[in-house]
């Protein structure tokens, strides 16, 4: 018997072992129901995941550039609109293994509006003086609770949750999805950036303040947001965001790498239907060593829009530091 004939015969011989169709039909029905029912949980997981993914940077406290890159929590927007807007505080640290303390490199307000369509990421300068201290100093002295209180007072909003992410989480999540292709050039409108695929180590290095590539804090923050968008697109395209098991696995990766969440996840769940329905709009105020001028020119209007849940109008006006 030729090998081809042997092959055909083998296949035919094993047809008898084919699983039954009817039991599987029922399993499929049940699986579809489960998958549809879990979308709220998926959204939460997606939110957590995306947050975890957008992670910060290692920066030295003495580094003068202010807004460090921020990872932002882009909670997906719900098709069934939430009753109130959600605010999540995302703090990125520079925690490296073996080092006792970590510094806050990035402080971002993630705002999920009542009206679906966009999620907003507002990066605050780490050197921004709030209540007499910079946000970085506040975090060093009082950790996440103190930082949350300070930003709450500053913006006049309450937070539904605080999430703290380390470079390890960014790296782990990036590697878990087999890398993320992102265009992280200098100001996009200036030239055509190359769009490489970053692995975990690569993205941490690239977004790091010590990257030595001469980027300002502002550019790093923009890149962070761009990276986040790319990750979200990837997760949308490959179906992760509509797959509970896949999301759980990815959240597991983030969790295992040290992601910390303080707050009610079910609250985050309220905000999400599918990330691909939401645009991610980033606000990164230009960096300056002093933020006084921003406090007067930018932040009052920005925070007012945040409080009244009307960032759509505020970001619609042409501004140098809004990117979508």
């Amino acid at each position, binding site marked *: 018997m030729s090998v081809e004939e042997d092959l055909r015969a083998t296949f035919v*011989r094993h047809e008898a072992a084919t*699983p039954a169709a009817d039991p599987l039909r029922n399993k*499929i029905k049940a699986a579809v129901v489960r998958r549809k029912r879990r979308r709220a949980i998926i959204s939460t997981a997606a939110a957590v995941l995306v947050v975890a993914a957008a992670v910060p940077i290692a920066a030295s406290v003495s580094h003068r550039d202010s807004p460090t890159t921020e990872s932002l929590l882009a909670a997906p927007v719900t098709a069934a609109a939430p009753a109130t807007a959600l605010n999540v505080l995302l703090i990125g640290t520079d925690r490296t293994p073996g080092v006792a303390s970590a510094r806050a490199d990035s402080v971002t307000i993630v705002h999920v509006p009542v009206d679906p369509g966009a999620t907003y990421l507002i990066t605050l300068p780490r050197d921004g003086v709030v209540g007499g201290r910079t946000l970085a100093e506040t975090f060093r002295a009082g950790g996440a609770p103190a930082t949350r209180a300070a930003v709450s007072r500053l913006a006049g909003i309450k937070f539904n949750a605080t999430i703290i992410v380390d470079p390890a989480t960014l790296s782990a999540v990036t590697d878990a999805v087999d890398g993320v292709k992102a265009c992280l050039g200098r100001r996009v409108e200036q030239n055509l950036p190359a769009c490489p695929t970053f692995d975990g180590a690569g993205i941490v290095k690239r977004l790091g303040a010590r990257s030595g590539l001469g980027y300002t804090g502002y550019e790093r923050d923009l890149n962070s947001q761009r990276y986040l968008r790319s990750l979200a697109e990837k997760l949308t395209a490959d179906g992760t965001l*509509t797959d509970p098991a*896949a999301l759980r696995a990815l959240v597991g990766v983030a969790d295992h790498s040290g992601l910390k969440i303080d707050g009610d996840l079910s609250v985050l769940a309220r905000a999400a239907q599918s990330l691909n329905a939401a645009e991610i709009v980033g606000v990164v105020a230009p960096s300056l060593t002093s933020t006084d001028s921003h406090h007067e020119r930018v932040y009052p209007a920005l925070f007012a829009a945040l409080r009244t849940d009307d960032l759509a109008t505020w970001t619609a006006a042409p501004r140098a530091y809004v990117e979508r």
Partner: protein
Amino acid sequence: MTYEEFVDSRLPALLRYALMLTGDRSTAEDLVQETMVRLQLNWRRVARTDTPDGYVRRMLTNQFIDLRRGSWLRRVLLRPEPDSSFPAAHDHAQESAERDQMWELLGTLPRRQRAALVLRYYEDLPDADIAEVLGCAVGTVRSSISRALSTLRTTLVEAAR
């Protein structure tokens, strides 16, 4: 055609195909289940832009090829409940005492090669169709199959000595 009509008519054949690909009943069931769940959730889009037959065959085959090969997504999808799966050894126990050497050998081939063999020698597809399923050139299909047959021949000849 509705999704239900499609499932009713295709499920048995898909299960057979999945079994030949994976060599394992449980994995075959998981593969088909996942493919059909996704199909149902995306039915309108698939029915509009694609042929459901092509879609399921491509998806099923690609999932099989990516199984446990660094694709975290597939790994997770196919084993959501760990206690529902059985190892391949379970199937061996169910076979007759006469060992099916060819069947075992198939399990040692790289997955792409196995898929190509199944598509030609079980599904009887022409090479151009196989190329579409696998997303490669016809020449690649032919060399894949040629390599696989050569491996099988060599191993069988040596075993016969």
